[in-house]
C-alpha cells in the first residue's frame, strides 16, 4: 500500500514541472508565438531559484526568484522576436543554448552545496488520513500551484474576453491588428507569462524534485513540455493528461529497470516518450477539432505596416 502511494507521489512530482512549463508555453503558442527556449528558461529558473534559496536560506524566496529569472530571460526573447521581428525558431534555439551555458557558469559555485527544499503541505489531522490524506493534502506546494494554474488558464482562455482576444491573435494577427487589437502588447505579456511558468518549473526541479544544483539538471524537460503542447493540440486538460502519462511511464520504467526486467534499458528509457505521443495522437484524432485549436499564425513574425 505504502509503495503504491509513494509511486503515485513520485509520478506527481515528475509530472509537475512538465505541466507547468507546458501550460506556460501553451499560452505563448495560443498567442501565435513559438518559443523554443523553454529548456533555456527552465534551467535559468532552476539555477536562479537554487541560488536565491541557498543564499537566503528561504525556499520560498528561491521559488519567487525562479519565476522572476524565467520571466526576465523570456523578455530577451520577446524583445528579439516581437520588437525586432527576428526568426522565432532561431531565436528560441539560441535562448536554450544561452540558458544552458549561462546557468552552468552562474552555478559553478553552487555545485555540491546543500540546497533548501520546499516543505510538503502538512495539515495536522488531515494529511495523515490514510491514502487520501497524503495524496491530496500532503504534496509539495508547487503541485497545487500546477493544478490551479491549469484550471486558471483553461478558464482564462475559453471563458474570458481577454482570453478570446489572445486566441484571436493566434488565429490571425493581421485580422486582429485590423480590428485595433494591440497584437505586440498581448504577445509580450504571453511570452513573459510563459517565461515565468518555465522559471517556476525550473524552480520546482532545484527546490523540490532534487534540492541541489547540477549542471543541465533540466535534462530535456523543456523539450518534452514543448512536444506536449503540440501533441495535446493546444488544449490545457490534454496537456495535463500528457504530463501525467509521461510522468507515470517514466516512474514505471524506472521501477521496471530496478526490478531487472530483461528488456534493454535504452528501450525502457524511451518508453515515456513513445507512450505519451501515442496516447496524445489517439485522443487528437478529430481533425476538425485539431484544426480549430491550432493557432494558424504560429511562428510567423508580425510587422504591422505603417
Amino acid at each position, binding site marked *: 500500500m505504502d509503495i503504491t502511494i509513494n509511486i503515485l507521489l513520485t509520478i506527481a512530482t515528475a509530472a509537475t514541472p512538465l505541466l507547468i512549463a507546458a501550460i506556460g508555453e501553451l499560452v505563448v503558442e495560443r498567442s501565435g508565438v513559438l518559443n523554443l527556449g523553454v529548456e533555456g528558461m527552465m534551467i535559468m529558473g532552476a539555477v536562479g531559484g537554487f541560488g536565491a534559496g541557498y543564499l537566503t536560506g528561504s525556499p520560498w524566496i528561491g521559488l519567487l526568484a525562479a519565476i522572476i529569472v524565467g520571466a526576465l530571460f523570456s523578455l530577451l526573447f520577446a524583445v528579439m522576436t516581437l520588437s525586432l521581428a527576428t526568426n522565432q525558431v532561431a531565436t528560441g534555439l539560441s535562448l536554450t543554448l544561452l540558458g544552458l551555458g549561462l546557468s552552468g557558469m552562474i552555478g559553478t559555485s553552487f555545485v555540491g552545496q546543500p540546497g533548501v527544499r520546499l516543505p510538503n503541505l502538512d495539515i495536522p489531522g488531515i494529511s495523515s488520513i490514510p491514502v487520501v490524506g497524503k495524496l491530496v493534502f500532503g504534496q509539495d506546494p508547487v503541485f497545487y500551484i500546477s493544478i490551479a494554474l491549469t484550471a486558471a488558464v483553461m478558464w482564462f482562455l475559453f471563458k474570458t*474576453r481577454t482570453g478570446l482576444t489572445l486566441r484571436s491573435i493566434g488565429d490571425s494577427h493581421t485580422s486582429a491588428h485590423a480590428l485595433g487589437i494591440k497584437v505586440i502588447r498581448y504577445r509580450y505579456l504571453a511570452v513573459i507569462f510563459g517565461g515565468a511558468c518555465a522559471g517556476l518549473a525550473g524552480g520546482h526541479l532545484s527546490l523540490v524534485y532534487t534540492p541541489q544544483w547540477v549542471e543541465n539538471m533540466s535534462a530535456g524537460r523543456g523539450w518534452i513540455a514543448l512536444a506536449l503542447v503540440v501533441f495535446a493540440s493546444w488544449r490545457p486538460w490534454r496537456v495535463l493528461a500528457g504530463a501525467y502519462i509521461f510522468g507515470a511511464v517514466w516512474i514505471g520504467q524506472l521501477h521496471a529497470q530496478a526490478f531487472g526486467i530483461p528488456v534493454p534499458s535504452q528501450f525502457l528509457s524511451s518508453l515515456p516518450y513513445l507512450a505519451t505521443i501515442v496516447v496524445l495522437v489517439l485522443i487528437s484524432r478529430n481533425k476538425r477539432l485539431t*484544426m480549430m485549436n491550432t493557432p494558424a499564425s504560429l511562428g510567423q513574425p508580425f510587422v504591422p505596416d505603417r
Partner: protein
Amino acid sequence: MGGTVSANHDRANLLEVRGLTKIFGTLTACDHIDLNIAKGEIHALLGENGAGKSTLVKMLFGSLEPNSGEIFWDGKPVKITSPGAAKKLGIGMVFQHFSLFEALTAAENIALSLNDGSPISSIAAKARALSYSYGLPLDPDSLVGDLSVGERQRIEIIRCLLQTPQLIILDEPTSVLTPQEADKLFETLERLRSEGKSILYISHRLEEVKRICDRATVLRHGKVVGHCNPREETAASLARMMVGSEVKAVVRAPAEGIETAPALLEIRSLSRKPATPFAIPLRNINLTVRAGEVIGIAGVAGNGQGEFFESVSGEVLQQDTGSVRIRGKDAGGLSITGRRLMGAAFVPEERLGHGAAPRMKLSENLLLSRHATDGKAFVGSGGTVKNGAVYSAAQRIIKAMDVRKSAPDPEAAALSGGNLQKFIVGRELDRKPSVMIVNQPTWGVDAGAAAHIRQALIELARSGSAVLVISQDLDELFELSDAIAVMHNGELSTPLPIAEATFEKVGLLMGGAEPGHAEHSLEVA
C-alpha cells in the same frame, strides 16, 4: 465631370480629406488626395487596381500613417493613428480581404471588435436581432470557417453596424456576392443612407456605382482625376476616367459546328473528398469541352473551384483515371507534366508563387513550365539549357502579349500583376495547347490588359482548341464564354448556352437555388 455636384452643397461634410499623401519607397501610392463625404450620402471611390484606393482607405481607418495631408471629421482636424481611434470617431470598415477569425464563432468575432465587455451571449442576441432587421440573417453560433464567403461578409457588415458608425467604408463588397446577394446589400445601404449615415463605397463595378452612389471620386495612378455624379455618366465614360483611354471591347465571333466537334476535355463523375476540415468536397462533376468553344465556370469564391482546378490540372491525382480525359485518353492518373504532354495547358489563380517563381527571370520561368513539353527546343543533348532559345522564346511571348516591363528579362516579381498575368497566359498560349484551363484569368488585372487576355483566349478557342475558364467575374464570363456552368458547394450545374444565360439565372445557380443535376448521392463529410 469635374467639380462637385450642386445637390450636395447644402449638406455638411462629415469627412474632409486635404492633400493626403502616402509614399512607399519610390512609389507614391496616394498623391495629394482631396475627398469630401457629406452626411447621408453614398460616395463612390473608383479606380483600377493599383490606383491607390486601398491605401487611401487604410489611412482613413488608421492602419496606415499618411506622409502628409490633413483629415477633418465634422469640421475638426483629427489624426487617425490606429483602427481603434477610427472606431472611436465613428468610422466602421468592411474589409475586402476579410478580417475574420476562422477558428472562432460569428458571435466571438463580433465580440472582439466591440470591446464593451458584455457577455458573448448578449452580443449574439443583439447581432441576431440586428441581422434579421436588415434582412441579412446570421447564426451567431456558427463557426466562421464553415461559412460561405457571402455569409462571412454578413458578419463583417453586422459587426460594423453594431458599432453604430457614422461613416461606413465598404471595400469591393460585391466581388464575392451573387447578384441576388448584392441586391440585398444595396437595400441595406439605402436604408443606412436614409438613417443619415455616410457610406464610402469602393468598387470597380460601374453599373452598381451608377445604381446606388450619389457622388463619385475617381483615382488614377494615386491621383484624383475627377469628381462626378455617376447617375449622369455612362459606364463607358466612367471607365474612360478610370483607365485614361478607351478600353477596346472584346469581340466574340459566333462558334459554329460545335455540337459535332471532338470533345477535347472530358470530366466524368469527378469526386474528391475535402482535403482539410474547412475545404469543399467535389461531388460527381461532369463536363465536356469541345474543340472551338469556351466554357465558363461561375460561382462564388470557395465553392470548390480551387479544388476542381487542382484535380483537372494534375496537382492532385484521381484514383479513377477516367474521371479526367484529355483528347479522348484517360489522364486522371497523370501528373501535371503528363497532362501537359497530352496537349493541355494550365494557368493557376495565384500568379506569384504558383504560376511563376517570384525571384526568377521571365525566361527561367518559361523554362520551368515548358522544359518537358518543349524539351527539344530548350534543352540540348546532355541536359544543358539552350539559354539563347529560351531567351528568344520569352521575348516572343512578351511581344505577342504586349508585356510592359522595365528590363529586357526582369524577375517575375518586378512586373505589375497585370503584366505578369499577360506573360503567364502568353507562356501557355505560345504552345498552342489543344486544351487550355485558366483559373481567374484577369483577377486584379487592369481593364486594358484584361481585354487583351480575354481576346487571346477566344481566338485560341476559335482556332480549334478547347478553353475552360473559371472566374468569379460574371461580366468576364458573359464576355467570353459560349456556355456557362455554375459551381456551388462542390457541384457543377449543366452548362447554360450563352444565348439562354442571364445574370439572374446564373445568379440563382450561384446561390444554390437549383442544382444543375439532382443526384447528391456522394456525401463525403
